[in-house]
């Protein structure tokens, strides 16, 4: 079934609505993201950006609407420890509605997120933090790990090498054995990105990655986001306050305000859009 997504699209949010108490946090929001696209989701404070985000990643279950996502069924077979059928030819993708899936299963489809407040584990080294991104990839069972049987040892080593590569890609290679606790904020942000890369994502959602960064760091971040997309061939959804960053890196932008869809287009189109201008600057007299 691929009817819900057009060719070349990875995620489609359709008619998403959710209310908390009497407050409609999202009201019929729709947009879709293409594969390998850098896509921005913007809106003034309280617009519902984070709510969209939490509905996509199933931290909230929306009252209505669908979240269609394209994934490679081969990944799920790996995670479910089942053998893949001998299917020759081009890789097949399938489309699924993520609504109602358990939160911890979302990463298995290739969808990973970061956190606005940087959620890393201070007591672990950088490389161990990155390895958490590979949590669902381990095939050794608990018993194999507790007894440290060969498969568990081999997997640990293989993923450790992979984690080091992800750290090196983010320029954190020399710090890999240091504890995450006490590292500067910029390092932690990069560490979180490296962790998402471990999952070989097809879509990364970044929750306000520029928050707390200075101008130089923000510019550096823009370059990093592009580099991640080019190297890992994944789409990136940027939920962001920092307009300069959004206008600089995003190919298309969706603007929302008070839980309602406003506009969707290229950065130039969005900047020209009357509704968006009103939402940000207030109505013209």
């Amino acid at each position, binding site marked *: 079934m691929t009817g819900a997504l057009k060719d070349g699209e990875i995620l489609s949010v359709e008619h998403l609505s959710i209310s908390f108490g009497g407050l409609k946090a999202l009201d019929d929001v729709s947009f879709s993201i293409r594969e390998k696209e850098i896509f921005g989701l913007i809106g003034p404070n309280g617009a519902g950006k984070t709510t969209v985000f939490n509905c996509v*990643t199933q931290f909230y279950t929306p009252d209505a609407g669908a979240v269609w996502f394209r994934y490679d069924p081969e990944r799920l077979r790996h995670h479910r420890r089942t053998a893949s059928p001998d299917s020759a030819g081009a890789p097949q993708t399938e489309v699924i509605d993520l609504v109602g899936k358990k939160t*911890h299963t979302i990463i298995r489809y290739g969808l*990973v997120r970061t956190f606005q407040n940087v959620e890393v584990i201070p007591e672990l080294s950088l490389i161990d933090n990155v390895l958490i991104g590979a949590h669902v990839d381990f095939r*050794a069972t608990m018993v194999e*790990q507790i007894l440290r049987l060969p498969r568990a040892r081999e997997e640990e080593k293989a993923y450790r090498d992979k984690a080091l590569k992800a750290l090196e890609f983010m320029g954190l290679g020399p710090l890999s054995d240091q504890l995450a606790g006490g590292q500067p904020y910029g390092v932690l942000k990069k560490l979180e990105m490296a962790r998402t890369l471990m999952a070989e994502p097809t879509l990364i959602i970044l929750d306000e990655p520029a928050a707390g960064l200075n101008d130089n760091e923000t510019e550096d971040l823009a370059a990093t986001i592009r580099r991640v997309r080019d190297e890992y061939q994944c789409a990136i959804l940027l939920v962001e306050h920092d307009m300069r960053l959004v206008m600089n890196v995003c190919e298309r932008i969706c603007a929302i305000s008070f839980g309602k869809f406003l506009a969707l287009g290229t950065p130039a189109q969005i900047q020209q859009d009357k509704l968006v201008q009103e939402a940000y600057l207030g109505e013209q007299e």
Partner: protein
Amino acid sequence: MALRIVKNPHLHFILFGVILALLPTVGRGMGMKTSTLQTLGFMLIYAIVALGLNLLLGYSGLISLGTAGFMGLGAYLAAYFQDDLKLGFWLAVLAALVIPILIGLVVGVISLRIRSIYLAIATLCISEILLKTFEQLEWFTRGTAGKQSRYPTIFGAQLDRNAVFIVIVIALVIVMMLTYNMVHGQMGRALHAMRSSEVAAQAMGVNILKYKLFAFSVATMYAGLGGALYLFFLRSSYPTTWSLFMSLTMIAVVVVGGLRSIYGTVLGAFVIYAVPELFLKKLPVIGGIAGLPYIFSGVLIILVIMFFPNGLKGLADIARNLVVRLRARTAAKEVAA
């Protein structure tokens, strides 16, 4: 190759075990009292149970005030299977492991709904229910009169006090190795992630239900094992042993020894249990104070929490850092010269 052996943590655990196992023989040669061996045996049992609690408190960030109840359950189960049902040592140990695990799974489910202080209260209640059961369920526990038992027979050989001590050492080494494997690798990282932020852990694919159940069942299993070993070593069990004080002592062992440290936990058991028994009680004047061990562990907990949040293991880290820094300074001086 040689370096790899030196660095292999499992060999360290085995070496540690061999040294401990030699204690009864070497100790007797050096005139060690039977009571000293008894104290050391109980200390090792405390270490086993506290390692399970450290998995909860240190790694998973979950609290339990129910340790004593699960230990008692293990002790009575071992006695019931060995002495009443006459099913032998191995089935007695198996029962003391499996049945507490089942209760641990129930507590794990409870912990999904409630947190921190409320979880502490809930686990305390479970422990108190077990304690009351131990007092009342006379066919199982002989009530307050106490359950009497005997040294176990393994593979047809009747064990004595020294042999049970060695069984305890073997159990401790196995528990240390298994715990090491649990916390170094995918599962340990998942527990860390869960402690740090459940939301972030879920986003990384960690199944919170699975890991809470895992942490609680391992902790109750170690407590059950500790209880069974306690029974085999002391050859009796009274309900008063399995009170809140035992649970609090286990928390003291973990906190003083060091959260998330395996050797720290053993060291904690030594400081909290063995030091008052072996040394403090022999001091003039203050040695006679009733409840001296309580005062000692209370003061230690306060000192550790205030000044050394990482416990004795943290002290060791500080010492190691000093040595590294001194060496670096000497090296720098040599380069300069």
